[in-house]
């Protein structure tokens, strides 16, 4: 992100214990939320119509021997709480269950699809932060014409859903210009990046617009503060004023929004992966839902929620670094 002067990041806050307690509290709260969320998801999926054994057996559903064997193997006839406990202990130990559809461990399935999704989210996040911040800065510092045109562009980008952006980008860049491939994730790092460029732009566009709006608003607000006027009056050059006084002070709202937006990207991958035919976690989830492969649905959902919560929690921690006033214990 923008320049953070290393001298701002003090090595140890005054009340280190308070900070440690705070982090423990946050982690505990997150774990509790995840626990409740996973239990609700489990109960919810239990209520789903369709007997998993029947789905697994497909045509051989009438074979009582096979039915009994599967029931024993997966414990489908145990009480719900026991089944949940088994799933939970497995999950904590890295055993995410078995996919009926792929006849494979969910953990290895997730492992093979995670890189695509992770790369997509990282790529998208970089685009959101870099372009969102740059556009917002440009809009805030330019004259009326540029500002207005950027604002109009942002409003449209903000209201355009990712699946619409996807088809526009595919039509223009893949069909007419032939710059990028239409489908697939590619092999090797550079080829992957090439394949993921359009998806990452799709994923990032409306979030970048939101980011740019907030950046523009908070820089505009900061520009008119007294301390900025003082700095200009003292004869500092515009660049220094902008960097040291305006941008740094407007970073807090910008970081908040950046964090929320990056967290939202995690969920956004579902649609983007589907639109570009990428073999990531999102498309796995959609496939599992349509084919009623509930073991996959359960574990992937919890992983997505966990990623979402962790991203949100990281933002809270960033506050303390950017704005010392929000550090725990410092202002008591």
């Amino acid at each position, binding site marked *: 992100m923008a320049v953070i002067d290393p001298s701002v990041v003090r090595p140890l806050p005054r009340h280190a214990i308070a900070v440690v307690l705070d982090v423990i509290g946050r982690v505990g709260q997150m774990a509790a939320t995840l626990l409740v969320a996973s239990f609700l998801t489990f109960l*919810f999926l239990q*209520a789903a119509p369709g007997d998993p054994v029947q789905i697994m057996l497909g045509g051989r559903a009438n074979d009582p021997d096979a039915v009994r064997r599967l029931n024993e193997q997966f414990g489908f006839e145990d009480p719900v709480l026991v089944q949940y406990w088994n799933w939970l202990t497995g999950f904590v130990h890295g055993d995410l269950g078995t996919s009926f559809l792929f006849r494979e461990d969910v953990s290895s399935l997730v492992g093979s699809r995670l890189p695509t999704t992770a790369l997509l989210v990282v790529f998208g996040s970089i685009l959101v932060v870099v372009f969102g911040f740059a556009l917002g800065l440009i809009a805030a510092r330019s004259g009326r014409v540029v500002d207005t045109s950027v604002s109009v562009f942002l409003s*449209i980008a903000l*209201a355009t859903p990712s699946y619409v952006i996807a*088809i526009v980008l*595919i039509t223009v860049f893949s*069909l007419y210009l032939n710059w990028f491939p239409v489908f697939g994730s590619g092999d090797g790092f550079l080829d992957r990046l090439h394949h993921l460029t359009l998806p990452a732009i799709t994923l990032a566009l409306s979030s970048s617009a939101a980011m740019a709006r907030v950046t523009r608003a908070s820089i505009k607000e900061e520009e008119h503060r007294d301390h900025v006027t003082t700095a200009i009056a003292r004869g500092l050059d515009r660049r220094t004023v902008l960097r040291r006084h305006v941008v740094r002070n407007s970073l807090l709202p910008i970081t908040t929004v950046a964090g929320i937006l990056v967290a939202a990207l995690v969920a956004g991958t579902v649609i983007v992966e589907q639109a570009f035919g990428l073999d990531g976690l999102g498309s796995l989830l959609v496939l599992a839902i349509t084919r009623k492969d509930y073991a996959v649905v359960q574990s992937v959902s919890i992983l997505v929620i966990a990623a979402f919560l962790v991203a949100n929690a990281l933002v809270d921690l960033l506050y303390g670094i950017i704005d010392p006033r929000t550090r725990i214990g410092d202002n008591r």
Partner: protein
Amino acid sequence: MSAVLPAGQATRGDQASRLGLWFFAGTSFLLVTMAILAPLLAPHDPNGGDVLQVLQPSSAEHWLGTDASGRDLFSRLLYGSRTALLGPLVVVLVATTAGTALGILAAWRRDWVDSLVGRLFDLVFSFPSMLLALLFVAVMSPGLITAALAVSIAFIPAIGRLVRASALREVNEPYVQALLTQGFGSFYICSRHVLPNLWPVILAQVTTSFGYAMVELAGISFLGLGVQEPTADWGKLIQTGQGSIVRGYPQESLYAGTALVIAVVCFISLGDILATRKNGGHR
């Protein structure tokens, strides 16, 4: 999703805001009229395909051309506006009713009920709304109503929190105390006195939510988990049209996408303007 967006710039002139209000309200009205009158306006049967007329460009016969099954795109687009508007309507009705009730209840009680409601909202917020909708659709069968109910649940906390915050200000007003002293019941005071005062806030939120619900629902349709074939729906049209893009015919997806974006921009902007006007009027 809706929590992310900052409100429209407050610096806009009153005149411009009035002009925008009329413009967006007019366009929304036009969209609704189009949806209602679709059977009268559509030149063709939206589901009747002609295998000899596959992927035709625009012509006098088919204004916007045809899709991969030879169905008239203009008619499908018109009929698609019906599901595109019906889904968000369900979402807004369910989410607003539940969110308003919970929000006022929480503001009125201020005790464990308040914190319980707050916790519930937090829990729903911990699920990304798209994931919540997908889980819901996974358990129920895919379809418009299932998808709409799923999105409603995801939208309840946003409306609930807003109503709670506004209601908190309202229940501390002297008139509420006066009514209580006169012996009126809590339910009577909330429904007849507090609720009417909250309407402007709720209305602005409803309009904006309508736009976002449209995006979410079309997204679920796009994933193939919402409206099912052969019913015409904008999200579904974008999905089915994707197959034609690689064959060099992006029309179906592009038209449906354009229609969707116009509608969404309309409702969200209308909500923004209503929200700004409301704030400006009060202070």
